[in-house]
């Protein structure tokens, strides 16, 4: 009995030593998962995830402190790709309502703007031009639609409008008309639907 235990301890120690040695001898630096996550995030810097921008959120996900479903601009696609990257379960979007809206951009109603520069200070990507007491304007192609400029405006002259659909960025709709969804016939086949969908104000 005692002999057996001793032999066993000896065996275990040998293995322990070998493993311990291997852990030192074959140490490998791990790859930076934060950057991989950050590469997937949409970079709106909107803070809707309650973190101060996309990179901090990526850090939080990597550290396991934040779930992967806090990013409405990224939508379901982002959750899917994050789940793939981190090999975790796909979660439903945290705030379902927000994710349903299409992409938007900010515009400044020029008549109302008083040139206070507050929105310029709020913009995380420097997409607003203007100087004090001068009218401001949004560079539409740079705007990420984060809405961070809306709240600071003292005269409520910033509005979020949907991104304009053009022939270049138009997407074919996914076919909806199938045996399980026969009601879709009217939606799918009439042009009214297409027009209503695509010609936004």
């Amino acid at each position, binding site marked *: 009995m005692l002999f057996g235990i001793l032999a066993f301890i000896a065996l275990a120690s040998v293995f322990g030593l070998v493993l311990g040695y291997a852990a030192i001898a074959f140490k490998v630096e791990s790859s*930076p998962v934060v*950057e*991989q996550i*950050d*590469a997937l*995030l*949409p*970079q*709106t*810097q909107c803070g809707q995830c309650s973190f101060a*921008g*996309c990179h901090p959120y990526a850090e939080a996900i990597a550290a396991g402190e934040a779930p992967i479903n806090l990013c409405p601009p990224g939508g379901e*696609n982002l959750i899917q790709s994050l789940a793939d990257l981190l090999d975790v379960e796909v979660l439903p979007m945290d705030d379902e309502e927000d994710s349903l809206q299409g992409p938007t951009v900010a515009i400044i109603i020029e008549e109302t703007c008083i040139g206070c520069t507050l929105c310029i200070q709020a*913009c*995380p*990507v*420097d*997409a607003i031009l203007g100087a004090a007491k001068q009218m401001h304007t949004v560079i539409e192609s*740079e705007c*990420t639609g984060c809405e961070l400029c809306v709240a600071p405006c003292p005269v409520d002259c910033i509005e979020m409008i949907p991104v304009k*659909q*053009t*022939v270049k*960025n*138009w*997407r*074919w*709709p*996914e*076919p909806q*008309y*199938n*045996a399980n*969804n*026969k009601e879709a*016939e009217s939606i799918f*086949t009439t*042009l009214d639907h*297409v*027009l209503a969908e*695509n*010609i936004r104000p």
Partner: protein
Amino acid sequence: MSQPLPASITRTIKDTLRHLWSFPGGIKLSGHKSLSNHQPISTAKIAKQLIIPLSQHIGHASEPIVKVGDKVLKGQILGYASGPVSAPVHASGSGTVVAIEEHLIPHPSGLSALCVFIDTDGYEQWIECSPLISDSSSTDDNQEAVTHRSIATLSSHQINQQIANAGVVGLGGALYPSAAKLNTAEKMHADTLIINAAECEPYITCDDVLMRQRPEEVILGILLLKKVIGAKKCLIGIENNKPEAYQALLNTISGYNNSHTDAQIEIVQVPTLYPAGGEKQLIQVLTGREVPSQGLPMDIGIICHNVATAAAVYHAVYRGEPLISRIVTITGSAIKQPQNMEVPLGTPIRDILNQAGLDENKVEKIIMGGPMMGFSLPSIDTPVTKATNCILVSEKSELATPPPAMPCIRCARCSDSCPMSLLPQQMYWYAKARDLEKVQDYNIFDCIECGCCSYVCPSNIPLVQYFRYAKTEIWDDERERNKANIARDRHEFRKERLEKAKQAKAEAARLRKEKLAKKKALDAEQAKEKEGLSQSNDNPAKSSSADLIQEAIARAKAKKAQQQSQKKNTDNLSEAQQKKIDEVNERRRKKADSEEI
């Protein structure tokens, strides 16, 4: 001119001897071509108002150079080409520009784009045309030889410039600016010119009648195209269901071929099998070679043009006329007199339908293009553009709306009929699940959207729409990613800027403080001196300046580190991702020049 054998005979012998290849899949369709290909080409009445879209081609839209209120003449330039891949747009009638605004254009999306509106004056007054070769219609004995000599005197660049100025684009459906394509072909030393005269889609006959009735224009256009790229060989591929057009071309060619051996043009009949007129398929049938995936025909030394494009080139060079009209097939069983009509671009489709006799009670669908690859028009108030080869107005029994899609039963009819050897069933499966990566793994970007798969599907699944959906979604994702990259850069830049500003502020504050301290110390020293104490005060000052240097170095280092640590989305990509990005870039570069059907 010795003539041992009539050219038509040698030609026939050559034809039978010529080895043709075949492409996988394909489907047999009933052509419905006799509806419209017997009548001569009619001319459309000039419309009261022309609506001319500024983007009638692949690439950048042209920039308008006319203002509202300007008087324009027929053939006058309205918008100039705004980039390397772009084409000018011309007025197709004389009159007054009344508006430059958005209007519904013929596009499956039903969206609007910028158009120039011209109220016509009815005078049809041309601007002065400057042809490169005067087209003397005098019956010269040796007219062909003369023509050919005059082509030889022109430089390739000269001709191409004329083509570019005339706004000629690929009229087979690709709408790629011809001059840009010829330029690339010349640079890449394409040695074979293939003229696509297959016109494999049912109902469409505009190329057929063009070849029957104006073979001269087609052949001269081809000679010009050949001259531009310096091609050694020229093949015309024509489906064998157009014997009249074949004969007409043959008769015309024989004259040129006999008088000038270097003008050799070979015309080849190919079996009627949809989509034999697809650029890639035609090349495969005629040469047995395949255009590399994501590549261009030029990669294998081939350039492909449509017969209608050749005719447009003829007009540009021989008459100096820009591309302001095209032949449109108006057909379908809801049209009283199906026919081919030469229509000025910008004419509202409603006008030409009325001229051909629209049976309003029968109308079920109005399709622009053929039934396999066209799209249903959002409205008949859209104008005819360079892309409009056919307006198909069907009645209910003709093209029925499909019943609801059943689930895919994986019968593989689609993959058996796919001319590209794709697996539509798998692409559909993943497109439906929105697994865009997998869809790309199954080579969705090799799909030419010919519609064979949807046509044969017993479950009525709109496969082509799924693939278009997946493609546009993938492009959209790419745009989003690019935008995210820009946003990240800008955000990082902003952070850095703010940091710098903060540091500058802090620095200034510190300097102020130091100054104050120094002053105080000095004051104190002076006071001490006054008190008569002799004590050295060098050390503190020295140390503080050393500190300053240290700090500056540290700052510089930090800044450097920060710059180095600036990351882009593209920095941490796996090999596969990088590969995909490369593919995408490659595709984008070449996407514009896709198939001509």
